[in-house]
């Protein structure tokens, strides 16, 4: 220490600090090094994981044949799930971020966040044991329900805006779901009953699935499971768009929907695209729901009424019994590598798109 101690009356603490200085410095240095070493180790481990898969993976022609239906099954499950998750997730995100009252938003957002945490095995259980046998008899009813629901919403909205007194409209502004919920709840038994009406018996027979455990069930349940993923990400992106953008437009006479469509959505588009990509990646890799409710038959059929077997479910079924080092083992690892790569790719894409969003928000 080159600070001259004599220039000032010696302090009693100075000696104590001096006595500990070496030890403190040593500790400081080694903590930094230790943390760095630990992080390096972790980085190596994370790097080693895919490499391990790569070195053990194997592929031959026969297996390529077998792999195709699995891949097709994964994509079929994920695509049907997206058909459900996209409208639900994006619609709910749009509603929550831009239309709902703050109180309602504060209520809905945690509900969907908690829904995201529901273990997949629970959803798989309900899909396999309850939904599948129930739905097997009611495919037509479901189709009717899905067709009628948006129509009902539009009709209700049109009538409401036409006929309801202005005071009511003002009160329910931002709370429209309160009006729609009971209507939708009423529509469900109606549509299902209609689907079972004797009049449509021949239609219903055509829609009879080959097995209760099929793409339709997977689409519904996996879609529900993916919906909150898309919801949270898209809602964040939409909510981050400054509010004055939309209110300014509304002041100029645009409706709330027009303001959203023309101004907010274009700004938030990258965030929404990222949400969709990540949701798709999640659906692609989801295991338990597909494992329990898809029937696990490796079919190459597009029809939602037939079963499927996905790469992930196949891993869960076959890997525990695969003999280490065998050809089958290598093949399973290959399929896992494929799935891994796909998910990484989707994630990287989403990350890239999201970076664009951040730039755009910073620029605006």
């Amino acid at each position, binding site marked *: *220490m*080159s*600070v*001259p101690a*004599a*220039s*000032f009356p010696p*302090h*009693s*603490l*100075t000696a*104590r*600090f*001096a*006595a*500990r*200085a070496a030890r*403190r*410095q040593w500790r400081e240095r080694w903590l930094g090094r230790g943390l760095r070493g630990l992080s390096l180790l972790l980085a190596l481990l994370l790097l080693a994981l895919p490499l391990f898969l790569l070195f053990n993976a194997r592929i031959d022609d026969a297996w390529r044949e077998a792999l195709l239906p699995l891949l097709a099954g994964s994509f079929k499950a994920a695509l049907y799930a997206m058909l459900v998750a996209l409208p639900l997730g994006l619609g709910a995100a749009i509603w929550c971020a831009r239309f709902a009252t703050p109180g309602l938003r504060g209520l809905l957002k945690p509900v969907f966040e908690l829904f995201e945490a529901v273990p997949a095995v629970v959803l798989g259980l309900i899909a396999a044991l309850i939904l599948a046998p129930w739905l097997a008899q009611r495919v037509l009813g479901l189709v009717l329900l899905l067709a009628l629901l948006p129509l009902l919403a539009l009709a209700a909205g049109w009538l409401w805006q036409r006929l309801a007194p202005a005071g009511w409209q003002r009160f329910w502004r931002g709370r429209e779901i309160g009006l729609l919920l009971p209507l939708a709840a009423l529509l469900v038994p109606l549509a299902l009953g209609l689907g079972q009406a004797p009049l449509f018996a021949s239609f219903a027979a055509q829609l009879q699935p080959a097995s209760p455990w099929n793409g339709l069930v997977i689409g519904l349940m996996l879609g529900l499971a993916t919906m909150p993923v898309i919801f949270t990400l898209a809602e964040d992106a939409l909510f981050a768009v400054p509010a004055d953008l939309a209110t300014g437009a509304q002041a100029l006479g645009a409706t709330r929907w027009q303001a959203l469509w023309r101004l907010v959505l274009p700004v938030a588009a990258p965030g929404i695209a990222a949400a969709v990509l990540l949701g798709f990646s999640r659906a692609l890799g989801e295991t338990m729901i597909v494992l329990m409710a898809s029937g696990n038959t490796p079919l190459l059929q597009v029809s939602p009424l037939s079963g499927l077997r996905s790469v992930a479910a196949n891993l869960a079924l076959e890997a525990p019994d695969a003999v280490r080092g065998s050809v089958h083992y290598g093949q399973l690892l290959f399929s896992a590598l494929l799935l891994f790569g796909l998910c990484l790719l989707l994630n990287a894409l989403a990350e890239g798109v999201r970076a664009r969003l951040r730039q755009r928000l910073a620029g605006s």
Partner: protein
Amino acid sequence: MSAPAPVAAMPGGLLDGQELALQARGLSLDYGSRRALDAVDLAVPCRRVTALIGPSGCGKSSLLRCFNRLNDEIADCRIVGDVRVFGADAYAAELSLPELRRRVGMVFQKPNPFPQSVSENVAFGLRLAGLRARLELEDRVEAALRAAGLWEEVRDRLGESALRLSAGQQQRLVIARALAVEPQVLLMDEPASMLDPISTLRFEELVVALRERYSVLLVTHNMQQAARVADYTAYMQAGRLLEFDTTDRIFTNPRLRGTEDYITGKLARDEE
């Protein structure tokens, strides 16, 4: 080693013969490409209060942080020039940073007590020295609180969370915390800006009392405060140290127009 700096401390021979606590020569500082300090020369005499005044953003805090090297924490901050603490190079390679910072205590604009009890706050630095004995800790905590003029108010509340104290008490607690590690210099960065008038008065009395043992470098936007407590006053503008003199002379007869404008003309606007 112990000789005071032989070169002329400040132009005009103002501090000649005085022992210097802090000294900066040709000190320039850049945040990335933005220059915050430009060739600053400043000397802070021992056991005196030196006030540093100047318009907002002129680099007062940046200059203060050079003396205890808190600027090292800012990633893109680069420093050129000579900084000495009691004659020793503060940026020497072999210097122990914790020891330097212990000797050069700092009080921030916003009181920032740790979310711990009052006595734990004061004991923080003592524990760094390895003090464990309860009696000694208690003695030193009491001494520091007394020196900061807070003891009478908190003697029954030592176990309470420091965040429950009033802003003025918190500021004095933070001073006590700095005094407990026995610094030689105190850097104070607008310490009274968040205090009410009565707390401010008490604080000023405290600064005058501290002058007995410590060298104080005080940044303030309050001209009367500078006039009341400081022996010397330095005026900064746009990263340059323009004028340094005894407080009397600065306030009655400044050499530069800028200084005079700032002290008189801007007085009303700056004092909030």
